[in-house]
């Protein structure tokens, strides 16, 4: 997932932005037992909120982020901030997740590297960074920690839990595990479990990281270094798989950044796409923690919606009590429309209310972050319905 498509701002903050937002940190000192059997005695969660929680606390929306996402989903951190949050196209006044009507909670998942407790945090038992000793996490652990945030705000039921990609997996897990606490579940460009091909790409990314000599078995921080080239390579591979052939063709074509092909000239030619990927990899390697990347991709690989329900997604979804909106994008081959259709088919067989839209889009998996007209309109139509339900109940 990338945020380089986010609109660049001019001099003033756009009127349809939530504006300047401030991340907050919540410390939890009651132990959280994890799916792996271990527990975290204490931890921090960094989060942002947008919009106002109504008196009935019935207009709350939880945003679940994807692999490389974080709490900063919308707005700007300062007037000089160059880029807004990663889902600025969908969250804000008048946008699909309309902050004039909804209260939005966006948190950095446990195990992340943007302020919430994760592998780069200090392990209180040793006084050193957790590194590879940080417990393995599953989607359900994120749901459990998100639920503690929910309790903190006194929210008894989400108007909607929304997520794209890995975020969609969390949203579905919410619907199954806490059916009374979710009114609507919105799953975008996601899957009930990864395919072998998808796991394979994650493994290549992990191998790139762990085979970097600077990785030091995951204890790079103790060696005062980071596996920069491994992380950059992982990101480059990921990035290619998040785009589509046509999308890349449209964006870069065979344009040359430097050098030329003239006969008799020995200039080294660099294509735009090479330079772009290197830049993305470089930026990412300086802002993302390698152990978090390993942890997040493992959580993705391990997720299997129906595992605890006799491997039957219909049986799994029978536990849900919410309405579902599922959306996919035609050129997304990492989380292909066929994966979304499997979700929809299981929901239909389980007799759950479901809306499904397959959005024509050229930008691969990244499409869910982009201002695609039909996507935003369909999303808005569904959210309008959620809003009306909230208002009717008041």
């Amino acid at each position, binding site marked *: 997932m990338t945020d380089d498509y986010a609109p660049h701002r001019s001099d003033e903050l756009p009127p349809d932005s939530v504006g300047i937002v401030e991340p907050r940190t919540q410390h939890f000192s009651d132990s959280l037992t994890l799916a792996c059997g271990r527990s975290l005695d204490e931890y921090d969660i960094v989060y942002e909120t947008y919009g106002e929680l109504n008196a009935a606390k019935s207009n709350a929306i939880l945003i679940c982020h994807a692999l490389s996402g974080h709490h900063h989903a919308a707005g700007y951190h300062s007037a000089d901030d160059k880029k807004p949050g990663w889902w600025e196209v969908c969250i804000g006044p008048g946008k699909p997740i309309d902050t004039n009507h909804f209260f939005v909670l966006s948190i950095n998942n446990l195990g992340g590297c943007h302020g919430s407790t994760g592998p780069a945090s200090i392990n209180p038992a040793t006084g050193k960074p957790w590194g590879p000793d940080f417990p393995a996490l599953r989607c359900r652990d994120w749901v459990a920690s998100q639920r503690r945030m929910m309790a903190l705000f006194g929210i008894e039921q989400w108007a909607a839990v929304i997520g794209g990609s890995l975020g969609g997996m969390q949203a579905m897990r919410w619907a199954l595990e806490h059916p009374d606490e979710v009114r609507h579940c919105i799953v975008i460009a996601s899957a009930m479990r990864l395919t072998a091909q998808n796991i394979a790409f994650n493994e290549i990314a992990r191998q790139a990281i762990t085979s970097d000599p600077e990785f030091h078995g995951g204890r790079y921080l103790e060696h005062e270094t980071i596996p920069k080239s491994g992380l950059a390579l992982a990101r480059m591979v990921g990035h290619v798989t998040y785009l589509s052939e046509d999308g890349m063709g449209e964006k870069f074509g065979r344009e040359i950044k430097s050098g030329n092909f003239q006969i008799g000239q020995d200039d080294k030619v660099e294509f735009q796409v090479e330079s772009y990927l290197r830049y993305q990899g470089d930026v990412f390697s300086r802002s993302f923690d390698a152990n978090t990347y390993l942890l997040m991709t493992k959580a993705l690989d391990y997720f299997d919606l129906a595992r605890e329900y006799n491997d039957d997604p219909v049986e799994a979804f029978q536990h849900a009590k919410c309405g579902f*909106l599922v959306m996919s994008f035609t050129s997304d081959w990492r989380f292909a429309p066929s994966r979304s*259709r499997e979700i*929809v*088919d299981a929901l*239909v*067989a389980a*007799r759950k*209310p*479901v*809306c*499904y*839209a*397959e959005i024509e889009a050229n930008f691969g998996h990244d499409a869910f972050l982009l201002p695609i007209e*039909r996507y935003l*309109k*369909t999303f808005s*139509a*569904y959210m*309008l*319905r959620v809003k009306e339900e909230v208002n009717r109940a008041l």
Partner: protein
Amino acid sequence: MRFDLNLAAEWIDDNSRVLDLGCGDGSLLAYLRDHHNVDGLGLEINDAHIRECIEKGLSVIDHDLDYGLKKFRDNSFDVVVMAQALQTLRSPHLVIDEMLRVGRECIVTFPNFGYWRGRLYLGYRGRMPVSKFLPHNWYDTPNIHFCTVRDFEQLCQEKGIRILHRTVVNAADCESLIASKLPNLFGVTAVYHISK
């Protein structure tokens, strides 16, 4: 609501589970939900229609009927409705088989190509009929598999399909004596209620 949809609604029991193929803006499903407590699901490919269904609070799936109904289990619906879409399908006969597999009963409505005005148009002008009901030219029409009332009943006979009810309506969207006596000549729209 369109006349053929009103008719269809009369044949659907309260509290049924209904699948509407090519559900358009969801008028029928919304009506059935509000007046007959029907649990409905629509299939549609037009994105504006899909949004209208979403706004009405209906369940709707973006799905091309030409891909079939493989995604649905046998007898998973009480009634499967397909209004004015039969003639747009690549393999209408296979879709009818699928409808009868997925639903206990089916309701199919289609424009009757045997209607006298069409025959006259073709007979006298020697050109494919264009009318207010079927306003397209032969080359740009979505209607690629026209049939007549008699054709449809022939297909039902070949497949052993039971016709539970048949209604044909005239140009004013009304049931008339003459249309009921000579449906293949005076019916504009045919509405069939069928089962296995």
